[in-house]
């Protein structure tokens, strides 16, 4: 009996999240729509408890459960990331003026369900569980994207997301099936460790005998990750879904879902190519996968930034900006070194502050003006100075200028790129940063340098306070990044 209950302790955060998700449904039923905010508070409290459990785990020895789940610091970092972004998203839902609070229990249920998917995705070396976690996240995201059923754009977003998601999941599964057929195992560590002398041949053996199927499988599996991170050429869904989905959901997709993709990709590459027992042939192969990722990174950031320049909707602009940022993150991944991965993780942390802030501003502004077009921003800075100043800070950080956390994150990425000898890639990224300056500051110009239209803006003091806190943290960690860097470094010691 204990043999079955003992491993469950390793899954405490996941179980707690499941209970919280079900609890949100029950609470919604019991409240009968009288006070829907209560469900949100319940979600926040559950997330806080999960965060405390996770914080206590930092620095523990890695353990395994049920032969598939790995509980280590790397996973804990991304779980904390997910919980922290979900908490902010929950506050966004609570302050969303466009939310009718009809069926609100489902909203939190789906958000928590997506988080459970991410939790399993980031804590496994087993491709089957990885795929299941990814699908759980995707299914919840599809439903969330279409949460405002009556709105045409929301329904369109959900439909496009389902079609693209289904296709790329199929492609990825096919790649996984090829890897399984070639190596006889779904465990990444096993796959990379096997010497290739006995059957199953292991990745090392297959690389020498049948390189083409291995390359095909790699590309297909990477396509699945690229879709989640919205990397070109799997980015087509991003602008439409970001624009059509309710803004809190967009925030979730842009921050937590993208981080899950990055985490799964880092885990996949790390376990397969950078582990301690990896065969030398496999490790060499990792370098060429890195070359492929470098090309993807360059194309992604260039296309994202160039497309963002012509956008008229703020949400679409941020969608293209998030595509561009996926490209920047890929620089760190493409180096295929521990330090590069560390830089990518640090950039995710930076991305957390600045992107949550930017989407928070969109939500505030959309709720007060009922539009998300950049034209409507004219003179908004005079009407709502506090959050507009915060927004400019986030924009400075997104561009990668000092003294913000975005600058330090980009500095780390560029430094690791140069150390790995990818001068051309860093050059492209630097040029891209200049391009991004143009469209980010178009927003800032609209905010402060244009005459305001008449009318005042309704106040949401608590929400504005949250944005102010994010703004302060963006600058604080930009000046003193050591705390986060230390934390990331500890988490990467797998």
């Amino acid at each position: 009996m204990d043999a079955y209950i003992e491993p469950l302790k390793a899954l405490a955060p996941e179980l707690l999240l499941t209970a919280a998700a079900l609890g949100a449904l029950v609470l919604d039923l019991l409240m009968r729509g009288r006070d829907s905010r209560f469900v949100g508070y319940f979600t926040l409290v559950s997330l806080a408890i999960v965060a405390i459990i996770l914080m206590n785990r930092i620095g523990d020895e890695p353990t395994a459960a049920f032969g598939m789940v790995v509980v280590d610091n790397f996973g804990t970092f991304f779980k904390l990331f997910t919980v922290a972004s979900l908490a902010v998203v929950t506050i966004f839902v609570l302050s969303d003026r466009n939310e009718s609070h009809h069926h609100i229990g489902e909203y939190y249920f789906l958000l928590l369900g997506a988080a459970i998917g991410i939790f399993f995705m980031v804590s496994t070396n087993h491709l089957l569980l990885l795929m299941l976690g990814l699908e759980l996240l995707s299914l919840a995201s599809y439903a969330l994207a279409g949460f405002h059923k009556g709105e045409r754009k929301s329904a369109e977003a959900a439909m496009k997301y389902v079609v693209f998601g289904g296709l790329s999941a199929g492609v990825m599964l096919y790649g996984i099936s090829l890897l399984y057929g070639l190596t006889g195992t779904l465990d990444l560590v096993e796959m990379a460790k096997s010497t290739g002398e006995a059957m199953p041949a292991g990745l090392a053996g297959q690389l020498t005998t049948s390189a083409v199927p291995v390359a095909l499988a790699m590309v297909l599996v990477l396509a699945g990750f690229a879709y989640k991170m919205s990397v070109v050429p799997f980015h087509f869904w991003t602008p439409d879904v970001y624009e059509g989905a309710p803004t809190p959901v967009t925030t979730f997709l842009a921050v937590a879902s993208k981080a899950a993709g990055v985490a799964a990709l880092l885990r996949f590459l790390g376990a397969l190519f950078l582990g301690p027992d990896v065969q030398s042939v496999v490790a060499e192969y990792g370098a060429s996968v890195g070359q492929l990722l470098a090309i993807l990174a360059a194309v992604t950031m260039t296309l994202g930034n160039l497309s963002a320049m012509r956008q008229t909707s703020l949400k679409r602009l941020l969608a293209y900006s998030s595509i561009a940022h996926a490209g920047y993150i890929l620089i760190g991944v493409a180096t295929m070194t521990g330090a590069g991965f560390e830089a990518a993780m640090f950039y995710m942390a930076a991305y957390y502050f600045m992107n949550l802030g930017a989407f928070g501003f969109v939500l505030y502004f959309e709720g007060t003006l009922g539009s998300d077009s950049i034209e409507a921003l004219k003179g908004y800075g005079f009407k709502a100075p506090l959050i507009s100043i915060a927004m400019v800070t986030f924009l400075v950080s997104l561009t990668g200028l000092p003294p913000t956390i975005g600058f330090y994150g980009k500095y780390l990425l560029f430094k690791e790129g140069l150390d790995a000898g990818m001068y051309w890639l860093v050059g492209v990224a630097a040029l891209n940063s200049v391009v991004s300056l143009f469209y980010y500051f178009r927003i800032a110009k609209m905010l402060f340098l244009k005459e305001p239209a008449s009318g005042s803006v309704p106040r949401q003091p608590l929400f504005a306070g949250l944005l102010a806190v994010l703004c302060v943290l963006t600058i604080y960690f930009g000046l003193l990044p050591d705390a986060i860097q230390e934390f990331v470094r500890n988490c990467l010691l797998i």
Partner: protein
Amino acid sequence: MYFDYLNVFLFASVGFIFVFANVLIGSLIRPKRKHPEGLEVYECGEEAIGETWIKFDIRYYTVALVYVIFAVEIAFLFPWAIVLTDAMAGTGAAEGAGIGLFALVEGLMFIAILFLGLWYVWAKGDLDWVLAYSSKEFEGNAPGSAGKLGQSVEELKAASEAEAEESDDSDEAA
């Protein structure tokens, strides 16, 4: 090479050729007699009314969805129920595993979660049989005049007959 791709290629090409060869041979040797009756959807039996492009009721979709959920539940519960006797008594394959109580609680939790879902959709009114949509929602969506809500079968039949007569006239004129 562990893979012999020639096999795959041969298999694929034989399959590909087989389909087209059959279609080609069929078109060469089958008798060609063209009657208007032969081109109808149901050659012998019901006369087809209207077009096939109608919007059909989403209500059945809800029912089908709920059915699938419970069908899956049963598919999971059958094997569980069958091995549960062994697990509880510690006999058969489960001898010495001590899994009995754990398996029972786990199965009950599974059922409880499903029932929570059922309770939720029931309470939120998603299981209610929607009685009527206003016909306005459907207009303009369905291609052609057929399939509009609010038209009776007789009206549809009359419409399709009128259409058929029109086409006969045009044939004669030609």
